[in-house]
């Protein structure tokens, strides 16, 4: 009987320790949110689907009918070197669905952050881990069912230079392993550090479709108009789109 009492008192003590530990943690590390907003542009103008003409670096005119890409494993680096990494960090940005072009990162520890790092595409592990849901659900049309892997970036449009029927342009860029992997992880510094606290800072990321065809690999639409599997062509476009993002605003 005495032993039983002792056990119960020990268990209650353990429970108290556990509860107070949780409580204490909440008090010492308050968290806030950061809002990421993506703005797709073509050079100096906003990207409009279907009925606006643009010109690439090679001088080829084209229209854009679809522009989608994955952003994954987003992290923020604080001024003191600590890193926040978003949990379950998979986002599909689709120009045709403006609700997909912004999202909040939550549970960001309060503090000052100076840069953002993310992968354009879906990390190799999540290409091979079986059926996924949410942004990674194959119903989103960004998964090659016959040749396992995500389409990391999908650009579709038309150009008079393309010799495909109706001048079709189709750049489905994927491939997560080997020399032709298109996975690009980039880090961008904020113009000035953002402060996470009770208010939610905004970060504006601009993505320029012209950069898909510009440098280091200038694309001539009469030579390259269709990409529908991993390979050297997809790799060359990814080397270009690794440079397509700039931060135009970071602040309250």
């Amino acid at each position, binding site marked *: 009987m*005495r*032993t*039983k009492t*002792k*056990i119960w008192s*020990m268990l209650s003590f353990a429970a108290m320790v556990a509860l107070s530990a949780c409580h204490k943690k909440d008090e010492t590390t308050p968290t806030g949110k950061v809002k990421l907003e993506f703005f797709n542009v073509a050079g100096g103008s906003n990207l409009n689907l279907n009925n606006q003409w643009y010109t690439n670096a090679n001088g080829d005119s084209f229209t854009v009918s679809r522009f989608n890409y994955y952003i994954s494993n987003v992290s923020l680096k604080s001024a003191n070197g600590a890193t926040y990494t978003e949990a379950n960090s998979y986002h599909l940005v689709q120009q045709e669905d403006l609700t997909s072009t912004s999202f909040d990162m939550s549970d960001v520890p309060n503090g000052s952050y100076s840069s953002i790092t993310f992968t354009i595409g879906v990390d190799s592990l999540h290409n*091979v*881990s*079986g*059926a*996924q*849901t949410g942004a990674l*659900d*194959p*119903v989103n049309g960004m998964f090659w*069912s*016959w*040749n*396992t892997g995500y389409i990391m970036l999908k650009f579709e449009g038309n150009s008079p230079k393309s010799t495909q029927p109706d001048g079709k342009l189709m750049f489905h860029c994927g491939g997560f392993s080997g020399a032709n992997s298109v996975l690009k992880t980039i880090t961008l510094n904020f113009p000035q550090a953002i402060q996470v606290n009770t208010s939610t800072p905004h970060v504006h990321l601009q993505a320029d479709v012209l950069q898909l065809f510009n440098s280091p690999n200038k694309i001539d639409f009469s030579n390259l108009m269709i990409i529908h*599997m*991993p*390979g050297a062509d997809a790799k060359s476009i990814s080397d270009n789109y690794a440079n397509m993002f700039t931060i135009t605003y970071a602040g309250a």
Partner: protein
Amino acid sequence: MKKNLGIILFVACWIVVAVVGCKPDPSLDPQQDNGGPVAFEVPQGWPQPVYTFQNNVLTQDGFQLGRKLFYDTRLSRDNTISCASCHQQFAAFSHLDHPLSHGINGLFGKRNAPGLFNEAWLPTFFWDGGVINMENQPINPIENPVEMDETMPEVIAKVGADADYIKRFKAVFGDQEVNSQRIFKALAQFMGAMISSNSRYDQYARGTGSLSAQELNGLTLFRAKCGSCHKEPMFTDYSFRNNGLIPDASLNDSGRAHITGLAEDMRKFKVPSLRNVDLTRPYTHDGRFNTLDAMLEHYRTGIYQSATLDTSLRNGIQMTDNEKQDIIAFLKTLTDTTFVKDPRFAEPK
């Protein structure tokens, strides 16, 4: 000291309760259906499976949901074709006597429907190995225009409108949401649990059965002449090889190169398992050989030389007529009649 002992006993009791409470019911028998976890047992002497059910815990309810989906023609656009249409249990889940299978509207694909068994051990799926996780396999026949020609949103809508399915999804996943991930995980439970390991060869290997003198001679010959690619105990090494078939210009199938884009992979196809081979005719990726004799005759006299031909087949496989008959006698011992008659894998009543 006595008090400490009491605490230790108390903790030990809880550990026992936790372990015993989680012990899976090792049965997929519908007669003993409690809906709960089921043990996945690796047959004696086999390697560990590639698909481990780690993120898709095998349960009685999940298996039965996958089974219902596998046999459901509503997975096709016009509700006429199910997975089982081209994967028939009596043929070890291949399509007997169909070189190529027909999908909806009588359209033909360009590859032979393989048998389905021991899928959890497959590192890749399809003749070209394009799919690398079992859960990502079913979307291909469902969405292929010459197979089931359906879209996943439509499948989700049809399944989600069925009261029995809703009940099952709730039992398996905790709520009634139907999505592609849940459909694929359920199908993976059913297909992944389809183990074929009780052929006469298996019984011989386990020391519980015997083979005839001719079959044993066939086994010795098989090991010497075929076993380097068709490795025991799975009877495949899962590699991709060009086995010297004359290219079929009407199909123009580049095989593994379709996936890798590499010239060195032209017309290479996955080495199929030979388990249940007597039931899975016709043979090869395009189903061009109707009998085991014709298949072996190809290796003896029919090898087509090309740049990507497997080096082990440059001179064909030498065998006398008697040796060929002994090998065929052995191959027939790979038939698992328990598996093809197993009521757990049959169409649900």
